[in-house]
């Protein structure tokens, strides 16, 4: 792979805190290597800002290997930037060329208020999990792990749904700021497994109710969530969620 260096113009969303108004500000960065990750390019910019006595740009990041779900930048109009099935931390600068202008914004959703700059509050996701995204089994109550064989197909599908990293790209990408992909992934995982059956109906009803309470929008089947999901979570999970929700709604006495 050919390495090259580039000079770039960045337009980055700056917002002091949740209460203040934000704006896009322009920055120049020079001699950025095509081998750098996008966040390493931000490290370079921040070092430059600190040296110049300016406030560095706040952004969430931690593992930098695409699994913790912390990073959350809306780059040139796409959640996590131009590569598909990718997180910002795994995006590398070879995706850009010398002279490019790159626009970087935070996740945009009423349910994810901005904390500072590119950092948002995603605690709504935790509260949705609290509403039912678990199997109620206390420590020490488990039977032998192989006492309950699980059809490999169901196990694989449950695993694929469980791959969700909770980053919120689905919400950011959605025109309605819907959290259906996130919620459906957890509902699908647990409803596919025998261990998830006892709470199957209450789980889906409670999680959807919490999702609505957190002011996420409705799903209008644009599939933008699936297109931007770094882990390739399928919208078929949403179909499963709808089925689970309807079945539970019909069979549960309110």
């Amino acid at each position, binding site marked *: *792979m050919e390495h090259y260096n580039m000079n770039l113009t960045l337009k980055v969303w700056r917002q002091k805190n949740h209460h203040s108004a934000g704006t896009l500000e322009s920055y120049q960065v020079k001699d950025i*290597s095509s*081998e*750098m*990750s996008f966040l*390493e390019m931000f490290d370079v910019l921040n070092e430059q*800002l*600190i*040296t110049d006595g*300016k*406030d*560095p740009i*706040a952004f*969430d*990041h*931690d*593992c930098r*290997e*695409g*699994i*913790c*779900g912390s990073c959350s930048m809306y780059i040139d109009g796409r959640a996590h930037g131009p*590569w598909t099935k*990718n997180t910002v931390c*795994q*995006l590398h600068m070879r995706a850009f060329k010398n002279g490019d202008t790159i626009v970087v914004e935070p996740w945009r959703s009423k349910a994810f208020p901005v*904390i*500072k700059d590119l950092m948002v509050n*995603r*605690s709504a*996701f*935790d509260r949705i*999990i*609290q509403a039912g*995204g*678990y*199997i*109620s*089994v*206390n*420590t*020490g109550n*488990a*039977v*032998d*792990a*192989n006492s*309950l*064989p*699980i*059809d*490999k197909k169901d*196990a694989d599908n*449950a*695993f694929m749904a469980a*791959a969700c*990293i*909770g980053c919120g790209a689905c919400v950011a990408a959605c025109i309605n700021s819907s959290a259906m992909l996130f919620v459906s992934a957890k509902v699908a995982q647990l409803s596919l*497994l025998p*261990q998830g059956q006892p709470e199957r109906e209450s789980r889906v009803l409670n999680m959807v109710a919490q999702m609505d309470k957190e002011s996420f929008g409705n799903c209008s089947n644009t599939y933008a969530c699936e297109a931007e999901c770094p882990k390739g979570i399928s919208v078929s999970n949403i179909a499963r969620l709808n089925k689970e929700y309807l079945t539970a709604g019909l069979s549960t006495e309110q």
Partner: protein
Amino acid sequence: MSFDSKIPTGEMNEKWNDYKGHVKLVNPANKRKLEIIVVGTGLAGASAAASLGEMGYKVKAFCFQDSPRRAHSIAAQGGINAAKNYQNDGDSVFRLFYDTVKGGDYRAREANVHRLAEVSSSIIDQCVAQGVPFAREYGGLLSNRSFGGTQVQRTFYAAGQTGQQLLLGAYSALERQVALGNVTMYARHEMQDVVLIDEKARGIIARNLVTGELEKHFGHAVLLCSGGYGNVFYLSTNAMGSNVTAAWKAHKKGAFFGNPCFTQIHPTCIPVSGEYQSKLTLMSESLRNDGRIWVPKKKDDNRKAIDIQEEERDYYLERRYPAFGNLVPRDVASRAAKERCDEGYGVGTTKLAVYLDFKDAFVRYGKIEQGKQGNTTGTLEEAIKLGKAVVEEKYGNLFEMYGKITGENPYEMPMRIYPAVHYTMGGLWVNYELQTTVKGLYALGEANFSDHGANRLGASALMQGLADGYFVIPYTLGNYLADDIGTANIPTSHPAFEATEKAVSNRIDTLMNIKGTKTVESFHKRLGKIMWEKCGMARNAKGLQEAITEIQELKREFWSDVKISGEIKAMNPELDKAGRVADFIELGELMCKDALERNESCGGHFREESQTDDGEAKRDDVNFSYVSAWEFRGESNWQLNKEPLNFEIVKPSQRSYK
């Protein structure tokens, strides 16, 4: 202060049962009155907080991330060990215990390791019950794979995302307790210090990372589940935020630090590509099941890997260690890679890399697939294509990650890998009950030193984190709290809280008022360079002495010339980082001191002065069969205490994987 390992008497395989049978209990009505602080929400912290919440204690859990689900346990890839013997290949509690003690090069405490092996089975049961989607066979039963340092298949896994799935299981249990009101979660909070009252841990000072405000929190006991300190090397496979601050503050308040120099350098990581590099990425050890490691037989061979013929390749692990081959323990594999590169056989532009090649696996799996299809006339090309699909199913996410980072396609050319800092076996010294030398202060998971000796075997970190949180602390904590049921909540207006908060606030003021010229990041990089070069894969007395002097100078420079932007009472990631780096600098000095004092080679600690004729690590059991437990006495001043290691079962011998 108590420096007694409190290992129960009796036969090794009865110690834990006996302990559980006689341990003091706290009745349900009293549990409701007792508050527990848990710092960190990785596998150890989340499992402990959830289990203690279920038992009825009032738990407060803290993490610096925006959600407990993002703790760095999530990045563990390969798997989790358990002595289930589902593969009928002769595994047992004893074998897991034995492998772990041997893998740790006879520097772990036997009783703790035996307990770990005993509870390993229950961990898998618990996780499956929570809905953790482990890999399964077509019959619907759980699948296993091999990991380094063992000859059985005891590793359970979920593709290359085992840590993620286990953490999400523990996280869901934790969130359930949050919903039930048993656990209060404090995300985006970082512990700044521990509060002691009458020599007992009674709470913490935490900084709210969003507002910058300091908060005082009371607890009848404090559990540190804050992970390891690999980031002292700047470049490591740890997350950017992983830090030693909680453990270090506890150390400065009286908790001894055990074996600080025991660091794991993982053999299979993506090599460094440039000065701007912020972190390193692991390629799971599970890849060594199918990948073969080699370098060219000729020095400075600049040809492409695919142009180097079979007979011109040196599969040096298979050559040196025929019995374990590519699956030797991590410390052995890392040193062997360093040896080849130091001798001039390295590959890639930096020459600091070796190849991890899947060519043979593609063919082997492809032929099996052809056999399954009854295809006897298929070509080798067709087999390779089928084999690539099999490998993709096993390791697809790792191959994809490699491709994104390097821009190269690992299905077409071998991966380039090199060792990188990955895990720290050292940590806060704890007794059998996981209590540090400070009463009421516990350390769990990677934050303690106890189970892995001088080298951790693959797939054992997840096991230990969950063992400590789910199955050990729920018993041992009660033994301490049973005597504390009469202690009412201490108001945080207590002078000890006020004084500790004041000290934390003064330190932050001091940092912010330095107003120097160099960024925090630049100090961290310089510390990492010293540590990697002089306290890394190979260490010697001269280098370590130099490192100690250099670190002391770096510390002076940091405290007189660091430049931190932003405000104190606001979100300020630079300030957070400055506090962490200041602690890493102090820890770095202690690590070098410990490495200097331990004039033997064992596990990941390789002293050049102590090696066999063929370059293997040479232990010195006569002089060094102990745990180094360092007591903080003041700036750059520590006293060494020794916990002798008495091996009742396993007889230490020169480790051989040949």
